[in-house]
């Protein structure tokens, strides 16, 4: 891995690893909130599976971020001792879990983008990123299948489930613009072949969503104003609460081994 550091800045690579790691961690955390509270026992288990995949990805990306940074921070230092403005996750994943429709629509929007993203990142010139992406790609294809099936069931199911699902699509839509944002750090990595230009993923993303939403008899909103800020550290009101909870034990007893 160290070879790439000669052609791209350490800061840019650190930033990317955090962006991916934080996004997976926060979404994994939201999914884990369903354990014991799902609509069906099978879904308690399935949502835990999705959460476990994401927490696993987060650990890999954050460990790598720590390695790239080179200041001795490991996955836990990075997860438990950064404040909200230092988190780089997408805003979409920090929103509260909502109802089952919100959770599944978010998972659909997320995995419809992250599946092709990771598929392309398998060819990243950074071998660590490529290896993490290869594992994550398989996981994302399951996430996409599972969430698509549920969105179709709920969209097509009853009047209530249709309405809840459409509301979730409408509420989440403004958060979908952020996945396509490219800042200077990302541009540098794209040029070095480490990261993927999200514009190349837009058609596949649209195609996947059109197919699922169509089968679910749901309307895809007009692309209007989009929320922004997660990847630069300006988050929603929700992330602070999530971190306060997640970090509580480590912050109450700093410097100990668990």
């Amino acid at each position, binding site marked *: 891995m160290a070879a790439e550091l000669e052609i791209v800045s350490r800061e840019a690579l650190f930033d990317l690893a955090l962006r991916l790691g934080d996004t997976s961690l926060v979404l994994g955390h939201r999914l884990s909130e369903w354990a014991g509270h799902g609509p069906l026992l099978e879904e308690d288990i399935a949502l835990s599976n999705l959460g476990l995949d994401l927490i696993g990805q987060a650990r890999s990306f954050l460990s790598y971020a720590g390695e790239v940074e080179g200041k001795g921070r490991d996955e836990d230092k990075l997860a438990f001792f950064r404040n909200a403005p230092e988190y780089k996750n997408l805003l979409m994943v920090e929103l509260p879990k909502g109802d089952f429709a919100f959770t599944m629509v978010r998972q659909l929007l997320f995995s419809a983008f992250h599946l092709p993203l990771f598929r392309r990142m398998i060819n990243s010139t950074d071998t660590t990123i490529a290896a993490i992406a290869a594992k994550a790609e398989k996981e994302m294809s399951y996430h996409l299948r599972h969430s698509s099936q549920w969105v179709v069931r709920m969209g097509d199911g009853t009047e209530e489930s249709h309405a809840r699902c459409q509301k979730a699509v409408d509420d989440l839509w403004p958060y979908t613009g952020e996945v396509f944002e490219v800042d200077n750090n990302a541009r540098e990595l794209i040029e070095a072949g480490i990261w993927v230009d999200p514009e190349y993923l837009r058609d596949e993303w649209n195609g996947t969503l059109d197919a699922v939403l169509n089968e679910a008899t749901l309307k895809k909103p007009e692309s209007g104003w989009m929320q922004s800020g997660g990847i630069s550290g300006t988050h929603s009101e929700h992330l602070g609460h999530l971190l306060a*909870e997640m970090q509580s034990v480590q912050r109450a007893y700093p410097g100990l081994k668990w």
Partner: protein
Amino acid sequence: MYTQALNDPSSKIATVEEGEEKLNDYFMERISADEKIEPNDWMPASYRKTLIRQISQHAHSEVIGMLPEGNWITRAPTLRRKATLLAKVQDEGGHGLYLYAAAETLGISREEMQQQLLDGKARYSSIFNYPTLTWADIGSIGWLVDGAAIMNQIPLCRCSFGPYARAMVRVCKEESFHQRQGYEILLALCKGSAEQKAMAQESLDRWWWPSIMMFGPHDANSTHSDQSMAWKIKRISNDDLRQKFIDATVPQAHHLGLEIPDPDLKFNEKTGHWDFGKIDWDEFKRVLAGNGPCNRERMEARTKAHNDGDWVRKAALAHAAKQAARKSTRKAA
């Protein structure tokens, strides 16, 4: 059904016409020969009823048990611990599923069993009516509660009812992982700072007695035990299991450097067992009757999940019905 394949049609099977008494004699003959009873074999109505009660209660315990541990998933102190805990809670959900499936072979639906739980007609293990107040409680539950569950469940792997016995074989493997993980959490705390060790001790102080109550009343006061032993549903008595658990657990506590909160605990050289103090059966009865620290909250959480999920289950059914209708119109066309 996977269980039917295991019924040997060539074996001597009493027919229904032979009359209830003869059937029962033959059933007891099979029990004494340690044969497994399978779902479509003849069985006394009371055997069926006992099993439904026991297996569904066991399933409910797995599911309610997700709540106290789930309480710490979002606060686990490291990412590794978070993943391990989430996976454990997920396993417990899986145990619930196998057990509901085993009970369903006796002719009751999962929905019916769940309704019995929500209506307060079916019980779950009282241990889950105690709260998880600190991270150390996640260690204590794994070590003591999963540990006690293993003691209880290992003999159930030889239970006379085939589907239950087979479910237990699978469950026991996972429970022993849970027990080790729990112990490892406490080991980390006991090797840590004074505060961490105190956290572990305080947790053991709260969980010890409820854990040893998990084995149920003393044999002399156990209402269902004799019949269950005769049917080989139960293989070892409550008191024997409890003693086995205490004998196994005391040295583990000492290895952690923790003190078991029982001043009467003493190794008996003559018997080779650890003698222990008087169990507070009033507390046991009180919590069983609904007055433990978390009984109401646990049932409220379960009821809320069930009610909030109602529209989701209806949507899945409606979609499946529409799919089937669309298929048949396509066929007709």
